[in-house]
């Protein structure tokens, strides 16, 4: 990750703007990350200020994939804090931009969740279901959204 992702100006600028970076060596004698148990590394997560983990990905990512995954994690942070407008900004960057990303279906799902919570309007969940069926029908997120077809 250092050689491929973290050393790029784009990623360093992104992290500096949106995140507080914390790196823990799992082999350190005084390792502080027991509560963030991981079965494999690199493991990259997004935490809130209480240390609650909101997003985790395993493995190596290109700079574009990393930024896309982090937009999703940052959106979940703001969704959790009920900052819906800011969550939507990050989800829309992911969905409307040219970021290389495999997490687009998850972003569609969480945009529906965010809009539902923002407007208290269940039709937003159904809209997300319909978009997933149309654009990402084979994704796990399309299956997870199936109950929303009944709304």
């Amino acid at each position: 990750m250092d050689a491929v992702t973290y050393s790029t100006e784009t990623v360093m600028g992104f992290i500096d703007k949106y995140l507080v970076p914390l790196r823990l060596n799992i082999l350190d004698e005084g390792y502080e990350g027991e509560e963030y148990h991981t079965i494999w590394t690199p493991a990259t997560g997004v935490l809130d200020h209480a240390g609650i983990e909101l997003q985790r990905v395993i493995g190596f990512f290109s700079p574009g994939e990393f930024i896309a995954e982090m937009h999703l994690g940052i959106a979940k942070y703001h969704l959790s804090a009920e900052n819906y407008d800011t969550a939507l900004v990050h989800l829309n960057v992911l969905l409307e931009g040219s970021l290389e990303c495999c997490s687009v279906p998850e972003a569609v799902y969480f945009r529906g969740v965010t809009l539902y919570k923002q407007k208290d309007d269940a039709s937003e969940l159904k809209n997300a279901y319909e978009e997933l069926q149309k654009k990402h029908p084979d994704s796990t997120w399309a299956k997870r959204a199936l109950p929303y077809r009944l709304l």
Partner: protein
Amino acid sequence: MSTVKWHTKTSYALDKALSTRKPVLLDLYNPE
């Protein structure tokens, strides 16, 4: 090679997250 300026203490990073209203990027790594 320049890279990210990582915090290595959880409590410091969480305090900074609270004061800046930014989430924490957690990187768990094995140097071996």
